[in-house]
């Protein structure tokens, strides 16, 4: 038996889905789009498969979510629909309900948040609502777990009995007559579905034809309707639906009149106030990062690195292997290469989980939606929407969930731009590189870390402006419209689940990509040719390793950036490449390459070796290159998935890498010129590149060319 769960965004659909299915869930994508598909088996009866449709406001074909939901409902025809509606916002939620009732599928309406209704003193009459809608209505509270069993029983009963809703929502006489005229002509469609298709045909829905065997021509009816109501058919029908809802709602739900301004609105008065909004936001964010990076996160990360891995696991594994008489090289591979390498990465996990816990809390209590609203007016100036900000905040923990969070952005253009720029924000794994460079070259100055974030933000702003002026991204960000959920204290379960899902996407890469790269790296630096003989190397023979050969072969690419010029040329090139596998690898690689088996997270042991290998300008250029260039493999995989298009993926990666190269080159060349006063070809090239960047930033909007061409076409046409 197949049950579909449908409802508006923020109606508590996910909470209900989790309550119904528990841990019996499987997630994936709907075919062809990056909209998440969630299915699960009902806890009380494993025969019942529940599909969680994306949150939608209507069954029109405008957003991918709407297309996915309605193709499923029409194409797969589930046995019943469980429609969850937010009781505190009944009018708007019933708009979707009136459309679901027309599909010719049994529907049960679950009115959620009834506990809040009671608290507010509002009265809901489910019997009256049930009679008015022509289907079963049940009161639930998904958060408190009340009424869920009853809702499940009712929807299963409805599916078993095939109890179709009686469509009792009349529109005005004129509109109904025209709809009946059209549905009478739809002889190829089963009777119970005719009204749905008739309405969609009248709404000039372009995609409905593909779902019908034969599409009748209804232009005469459309013309008649538009002339009678003096509006376009889609607006007429929307108005008819809301008119019907308004006519029934007064009897079914009585609001407590005393209350004029809800608590949520009072909070919004302060939190989104034009003067206080930004300071409040800054304080909250500072608190979040201070706790998750500096205090609790640091303690947990220190414990994981030093005690859990440093004292227990690595020596334990090593001793264990020795006890069973394992060969030395294999012991080295497992204990130092694999366990040590993967462990260094897992050290970030506690810190990241604390950050994700806070962000999940801010998201589910409703504050994040306000942040998008507050940031919109700033982000709009450089071609991004306020909704781009949330992926970037999450990206400061780990880029993979950050990129995945861009899914909530409806506009394709805005989403692509967000995916391309999110990883410019220094993620948790880039922090050790910052600490290493700051410690080895700048006396641990605090400004290095600040400047890294500043470079990231500048790269986002600059990219926004540059990309907006290209043909691909021409035009302004989509108009900002976003529903703001009421502030509420979130369920612990859903906050923890969200924290875990994001943390897990990071841990997975430690178990897969980083594990593999640790093995490959160990092999590449442990073997090589001595006097033409391929052999295993001892520690001091590193210069003969395969890795040294590869590094030496590609070092020239980075020569203009300064960091492969000194004696340590090939090491720097190798570190940049291993950084592409995972940024956490950079410091570890340095440790191995400079002859230390294990280094602290900030690489304190190799500071002196490193500072001898390159100049400060070169070091800063190395840092910036690693901050901006293509992110790690895992994040690249996320970009590939979210772009859902090979060409766009390569464009994004290429753009990031070229930008990183150009900016690092300018920093090194101009930095060297300022500190030493030597002017060479490189300096000239750097100044030319700066001019080019300035041109790209300041040139007039690209769309002007387009509008000129369009205007010309009009004149000549």
């Amino acid at each position, binding site marked *: 038996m197949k049950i579909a769960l449908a409802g508006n965004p923020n109606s508590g659909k996910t909470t209900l889905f989790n309550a119904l299915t528990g841990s019996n869930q499987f997630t994936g994508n709907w075919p062809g789009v990056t909209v998440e598909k969630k299915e699960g088996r009902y806890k009380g009866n494993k025969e019942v498969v529940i599909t969680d449709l994306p949150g939608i*406001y*209507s069954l*029109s074909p*405008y957003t991918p979510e709407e297309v996915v939901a309605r193709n499923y409902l029409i194409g797969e025809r589930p046995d019943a629909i469980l429609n969850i509606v*937010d009781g*505190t*916002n*009944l*009018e*708007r939620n019933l*708009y979707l309900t009136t459309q679901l009732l027309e599909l010719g599928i049994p529907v049960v309406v679950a009115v959620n948040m009834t506990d809040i209704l009671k608290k507010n003193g509002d009265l809901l009459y489910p019997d009256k609502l049930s009679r008015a809608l022509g289907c079963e209505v049940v009161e639930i509270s998904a958060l408190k777990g009340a009424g869920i069993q009853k809702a499940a029983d009712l929807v299963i009963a409805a599916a078993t009995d095939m109890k179709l809703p009686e469509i009792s929502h009349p529109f005005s006489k004129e509109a109904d007559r025209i709809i009946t005229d059209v549905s009478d002509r739809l002889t190829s469609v089963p009777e119970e579905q005719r009204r749905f298709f008739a309405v969609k045909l009248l709404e000039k829905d372009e995609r409905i034809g593909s779902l019908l065997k034969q599409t009748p021509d209804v232009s005469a009816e459309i013309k008649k309707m538009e002339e009678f109501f003096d509006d376009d058919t*889609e*607006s007429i029908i*929307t*108005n008819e639906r*809301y008119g019907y809802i*308004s006519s029934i709602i007064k009897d079914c739900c009585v609001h407590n009149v005393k209350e004029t*301004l809800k608590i*949520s*609105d009072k909070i*919004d*008065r302060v939190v*989104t*106030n*034009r003067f206080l*909004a930004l300071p409040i936001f800054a304080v909250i964010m500072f608190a979040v990062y201070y706790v998750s990076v500096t205090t609790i996160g640091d303690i947990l990360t220190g414990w994981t690195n030093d005690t859990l891995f440093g004292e227990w696991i690595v020596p334990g594994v090593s001793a264990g292997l020795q006890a069973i008489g394992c060969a030395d090289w294999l012991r080295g591979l497992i204990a130092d290469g694999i366990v040590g390498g993967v462990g260094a990465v897992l050290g970030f996990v506690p810190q990241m989980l604390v950050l994700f816990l806070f962000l999940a809390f801010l998201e589910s209590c409703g504050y994040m*939606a*306000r942040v*998008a*609203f*507050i940031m*919109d*007016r700033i982000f*709009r100036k450089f071609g991004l929407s306020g909704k781009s900000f949330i992926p970037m905040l999450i990206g400061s923990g780990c880029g993979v969930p950050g990129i995945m969070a861009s899914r909530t952005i409806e506009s394709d253009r805005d989403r692509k731009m967000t995916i391309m720029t999110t990883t410019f924000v220094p993620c948790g794994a880039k922090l050790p590189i910052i600490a290493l460079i700051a410690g080895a070259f700048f006396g641990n100055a605090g400004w290095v870390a600040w400047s890294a974030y500043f470079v990231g933000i500048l790269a986002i702003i600059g990219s926004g402006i540059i990309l907006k002026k290209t043909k691909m991204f021409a035009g302004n960000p989509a*108009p*900002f*419209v*976003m*529903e*703001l*959920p*009421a502030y509420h204290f979130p369920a612990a379960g859903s906050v923890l689940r969200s924290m875990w899902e994001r943390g897990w996407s990071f841990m997975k890469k430690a178990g897969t990509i980083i594990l593999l790269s640790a093995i490959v790296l160990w092999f590449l630096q442990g073997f090589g040719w001595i006097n033409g003989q391929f052999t295993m190397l001892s520690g001091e023979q590193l210069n003969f390793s395969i890795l040294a050969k590869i590094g030496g072969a590609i070092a020239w690419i980075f020569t203009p950036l300064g960091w492969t010029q000194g004696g340590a040329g090939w090491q720097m090139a190798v570190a940049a490449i291993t950084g592409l596998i995972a940024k956490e690898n950079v410091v570890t690689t340095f440790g191995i390459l400079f002859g230390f088996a294990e280094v602290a997270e900030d690489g304190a042991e190799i500071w002196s070796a490193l500072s001898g290998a390159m100049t400060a300008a070169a070091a800063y250029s190395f840092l910036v290159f690693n901050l901006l260039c293509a992110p790690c493999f895992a994040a690249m995989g996320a970009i590939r998935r979210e772009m859902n298009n090979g060409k766009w993926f390569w464009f994004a990666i290429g753009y990031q890498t070229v930008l990183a190269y150009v900016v690092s080159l300018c920093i090194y060349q101009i930095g060297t010129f300022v500190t030493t006063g030597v002017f060479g070809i490189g300096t000239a090239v750097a100044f030319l590149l700066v001019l080019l960047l300035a041109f790209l930033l300041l040139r007039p909007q690209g769309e002007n060319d387009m509008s000129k061409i369009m205007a010309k076409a009009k004149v000549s046409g």
Partner: protein
Amino acid sequence: MPLTMAKTGESNIIKKVGGRGETKRFLEKLGFVTGGSVMVISAAGGNLIVNVKDSRVAIGTEMARKILV
């Protein structure tokens, strides 16, 4: 007058939803229909948070200008 000029905290009746195509339809779907009531809760740099059909919706200036009250 356009919604952008409405006073904060005052309830207004929507006279007309302007704009074309998708923008207009999206607003209507969210409950901005002629004859419905709407109240501005907060305004920040031209962007508005409004209460419509019992839900809070944040809208940008471009869209708010198309709603006449």
